[in-house]
């Protein structure tokens, strides 16, 4: 069934978009403008691949869990660099996270040609990870893997977190008005936004780990076709709402897989999809403002 495999491909592509989209949405809601999901994702993928390769034989099946946790930790550590720069020196995270994206990209380039290169030293990539380190495939004969379920569960969890928990409310409060959060609510704004930054980085790192364990089974240079950047669009289209991120993540995945098919079958450049994405993001920002709800720090309610 070719149709089913196309659908599966789209959902496979949606998985990192949803998880990294959550990373961005969570950060932006908390007033942290983490543009570094791409770098955190790449570092997470690196950690996931490295742990799977090194610890695979010794740990058996549980290596999968360890690898994914390492990916999340690596993403958080990468975000911590920007979080420290912001805390200590007031460096704008918008600048630092973009710079860290480039560093992560070239770090991967170096590793897959050096310390982590596969034994034959021909291809710029790592060895494939063992079967035991791979995420289970849900639909046989497709690439549709368990990572998608993780993405949905995470989105629901973060939706619940914002809606019902004290920590979720604090994150919303510091994002909407840090001064009021401190003066009226005695929220430790610096500490809370630091934690938001780390959690965001962990999510993006996990997205990278899941990509390695579920799809590529190896680390190589062009592992991410800019998932971390598209994730910003995904989060914005969703109005920074975690549940909405599921829908917008799937939407963008369809757009991008569809664009690849259009290029293959009708010679329409796949970059057309990027144009459509950008138009959607700008329109979504304008619409959020027109509906009188602006996104703090990004848009404000429209005035007539």
């Amino acid at each position, binding site marked *: 069934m070719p149709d089913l495999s196309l659908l599966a491909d789209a959902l496979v592509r949606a998985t990192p978009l949803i998880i990294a989209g959550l990373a961005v949405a969570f950060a932006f809601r908390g007033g942290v403008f983490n543009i570094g999901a791409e770098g955190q994702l790449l570092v997470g993928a690196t950690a996931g691949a490295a742990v799977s390769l090194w610890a695979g034989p010794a740990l058996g099946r549980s290596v999968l869990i360890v690898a994914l946790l390492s990916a999340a930790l690596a993403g958080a550590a990468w975000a911590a660099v920007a979080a420290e720069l912001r805390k200590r020196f007031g460096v704008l995270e918008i600048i630092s996270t973009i710079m860290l994206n480039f560093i992560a990209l070239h770090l991967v380039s170096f590793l897959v040609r050096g310390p982590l290169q596969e034994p034959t030293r021909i291809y710029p990539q790592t060895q494939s990870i063992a079967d035991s380190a791979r995420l289970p495939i849900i639909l046989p004969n497709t690439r549709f893997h368990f990572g998608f379920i993780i993405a949905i569960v995470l989105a629901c969890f973060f939706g619940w977190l914002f809606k019902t928990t004290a920590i979720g409310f604090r994150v919303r409060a510091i994002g909407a008005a840090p001064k009021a959060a401190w003066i*009226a609510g*005695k929220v430790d*704004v610096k500490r809370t936004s630091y934690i938001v930054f780390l959690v965001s980085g962990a999510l993006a790192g996990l997205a990278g780990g899941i990509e390695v364990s579920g799809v590529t089974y190896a680390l190589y240079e062009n592992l991410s076709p800019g998932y971390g950047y598209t994730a910003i669009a995904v989060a914005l289209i969703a109005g920074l709402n975690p549940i909405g991120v599921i829908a917008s993540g799937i939407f963008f995945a369809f757009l991008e897989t569809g664009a690849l098919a259009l290029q293959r079958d009708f010679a329409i450049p796949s970059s057309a999809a990027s144009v459509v994405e950008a138009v959607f993001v700008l329109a979504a920002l304008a619409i959020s403002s027109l509906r009188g709800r602006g996104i703090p720090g990004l848009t404000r309610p429209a005035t007539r």
Partner: protein
Amino acid sequence: MDDGPSANWSLTQASIGQPVSDSPANALELRGITKNFGAVTALDDVSLSIKPGSIHALLGENGAGKTTLMRIAFGMVKADSGQILRDGGLLELRSPADAIAARIGMVHQQFSLIPAMTVAENVALGGKGLYNVNDVAARISEIASTTGLTIDSRARVANLTSAERQKVEIVRTLAHDARILILDEPTAVLAEKDIGELFEQLRVFASAGGSVVLITHKLQNALDHADEVSVLRHGKLVLNAPMDAASKDSLTAAMLGSAPQEQGITRGTAIRSRLVARVGPPFVEVFAGEILGVAALEGAAGPLLRSFAGRAQTGSGKPGSGKTGLRVGFVPENRQEEALIPDLSLTENLALKNAGERRGIIDWKQLRDNTSTVIREFDVRASGPDATARSLSGGNQQRFVLGRELSDKPELLVLENPTQGLDVNAASVVHQRMKAARDSGTAIVFYSTDLDELVDLADRVVVVGGGRISDSPPDKSEIGRLLLGIETAEHPVA
């Protein structure tokens, strides 16, 4: 190089429609102005005439529609229906630029100056053609010589006091050739001395044929200085008369709809055995069951009050000195930025109190009920607990914040300028609530720029000034003496 007049920097751009009636023209006439914001009627068929050469006071409680009416006259807000006439000619205002072209100027309650720029640059904003600092300076000194509004055109606005900034705002509108000057609560930020000076200058402007519209809720300013008075209540014009025909009582009755109840001054008795909080050094103590008033020159009281409230460090940090676990209510001066999150609902704003200490799951249903209780008990006029904080008027926001901060029966309540910007009625409600809390054993510390309020409300006063803190009885001249650091033989400043 020959610069034609059109190439020069120019502020003048008057163009006014033809008269449609030949009655002795009013400088500005509003006819049947109606404005609805959603379901709320802000203005209901209001007609108002502003005569040339007069100072016209526009009075009303908070939310009565004064500012909205004048924003319509200044082209900032579009009326749903009604007409605006300028010197008898019909005026179509699509934006403030149209109003400025019709020689109407407005000074807003919140200043709109750019602090990093000089006075001359700020005045030049909105002009046309090339900017020439000498032309602008000449214009500023010309205005100074005719109205007495003297200001250094090279001074950087960031270095100016509130009174001087207000001068710059007025000079700017005059530089744009305004003949109708609308001032929104101009005395709110001014000291007594500056208020007198302001009105002298406004009188000079009016004597030269200009018109002044003075939006205020300070009755005394209007009585002392205005020629005409109009009163708005709940969006309707309820009184319009020459000032000679109005009295303090008639205006108060028109503003409030009924005479306000005068309240006798009752003092509390501090429970000296129960020290609630102590901050310092130098140490200041507050005991259960008393209201401690803090008198200070602008800005000096902030650190003291914030350390009482446990908000001494900004942005981060642990609660300040004092017992931990002390239940403290805090009503900051800046409601919009520090007390409330305007875009969140009232329920969420209630949850904001102690948000830093909340754990686990928030019981939103319970909080929503608590919010309804606060709304009811503190007479907050809101559509319900789901209304955004932004949708409330200033007085209602303040009542909500006060209700929230009193909702957990705090042992200590700290308030900064609690009645600033509130009308007589709203202020008296705040005072009653403070006394009721005191009588039930809460220790209260508050700061006020209004010495009368301080003296009427406080059981004990501390004066912060000149690097020291001294105790004072609630007596105006004694407080004033300590504030200014005046030393006398029998009253050495300790």
